[in-house]
């Protein structure tokens, strides 16, 4: 079976979430890989949420807000854009490939763009392969599994560090 990426999306209530509703009302069909978390404004999305989504197993994170100049809250999306551009650099520095985190402006009328964006992102993340941070965390911590049991055994002996 081919790899099906898990994508967590944060959609602002007024534009992108509404656009996703519109895509539904219009019965557009798109890939079922995205799980939408609704926020009132893309400006509510804290870079911690994006990182946390990756850490909890997302292969991609999609952030959707109103077009620049169109924010329901005047300028929330500019605040998002600025902080997310820095986050982008940090994610890159931490080895998370381009394309796993994406910021898109989708207005309430752009149901079609929800479809196109989701399909495109799913295809691109699928091509990148699984990120699987939880699996990586487990893998990394294998190097510290052994000693704990040894030290805590009832008759600890001298530890041979060489492995």
């Amino acid at each position, binding site marked *: 079976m081919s790899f099906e990426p898990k994508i967590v999306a944060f959609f602002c209530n007024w534009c992108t979430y509404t656009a996703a509703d519109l895509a539904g009302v219009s019965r557009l069909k798109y890939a079922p890989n995205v799980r939408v978390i609704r926020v009132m404004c893309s400006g509510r999305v804290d870079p911690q949420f994006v990182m946390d989504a990756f850490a909890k197993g997302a292969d991609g994170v999609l952030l959707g807000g109103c077009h620049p100049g169109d924010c329901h809250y005047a300028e929330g999306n*500019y605040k998002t854009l600025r902080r997310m*551009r820095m986050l982008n650099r*940090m994610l890159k520095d931490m*080895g998370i490939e381009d394309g796993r985190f994406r910021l898109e402006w989708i207005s309430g009328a752009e149901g079609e763009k929800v479809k196109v964006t989701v399909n495109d992102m799913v295809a691109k993340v699928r091509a990148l392969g699984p990120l699987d941070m939880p699996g990586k965390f487990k893998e*990394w911590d294998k190097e510290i599994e052994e*000693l*704990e049991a040894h*030290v805590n055994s009832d008759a600890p002996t001298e530890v041979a*560090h*060489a492995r």
Partner: protein
Amino acid sequence: MPDKPKVAFYWCASCGGCEEAVVDLAEDILKVVEAVDIVLWPVAMDFKKADIAARPDKSVAVAFINGAIRTSEQEEWVHMLRRKAQVVVSFGACANSGGIPALANQFKKEDILKFVYEDCPGIDNPQKIRPQTSTVDEGRTLTLPVLHNMVRSLDQVIEVDYYLPGCPPTPKIIMSAVQAILAGKLPARGTVLSPDIALCEECKRKDSKPADLALAEFKRPHQVQIDPEKCLLAQGLVCMGPATRSGCEALCPSGNMPCTGCFGPTSRVKDQGAKFVSSVFSNIVPKEEKDIDAVLDGIPDPIGTFYRYGLSKCILRRKLN
């Protein structure tokens, strides 16, 4: 005379500054020594591992452990101390969140070894000899600990009861922690023993911070004549104060240097770097991507800047490779 409570100090991947901080207690150290029985303190006294191993479990009242966990030896020691101590205090930024050593989590172990033993300027090692974990010499086997693939905070290896933040913790917070322990007046387990409010609270420059900090440029300390009165962020310097726990009495800002975040975040924040970014960059001046990028270029090393003491506790933990 009833037994005095037994106290252990131990050091892992650290610079020694935390040991220095204990000594910095000055005459107060005498009060401590009077009240407790020190059973382990490698920097000052000679104890053998076997001495500690031989003690009954939970026979040590408190173990103060500083430094990050980088090797299997450190790993073994902290597990042993966890077994012997009733209370483990993670002491200082390295133990709490990886500290400076954790910046190594941006690199692969192999790349680090290769640089240190082969490529580093000044190295003369034509045979490219690397330290071995086990060597036989004149019939005897010598061992060295294993270098882990990554640097961990203490609580990523053992359970920790309390945290003393700082690089290093200041005498004031050490003393108040010690007093609390001796008096048995400890807060809930897992607490960081310094005020759970950000640094601006105790910064003398606080009042000079403008309400609208719209930055169009970031500068590094050597690039500017720093105004000794004015908020450092307002001068375009990356001061981590707003995202950093207080308790140090704003030592660095008082010394005309921006806060670099050694006390870690408040209890409400999971990831100090991400949160700082969310705050400061939301309000920079430009609106267009390329102009935003130009401002961001003023911070050439975001990870090293925002996670100087905390990369182990970054939500992503280390660079993927």
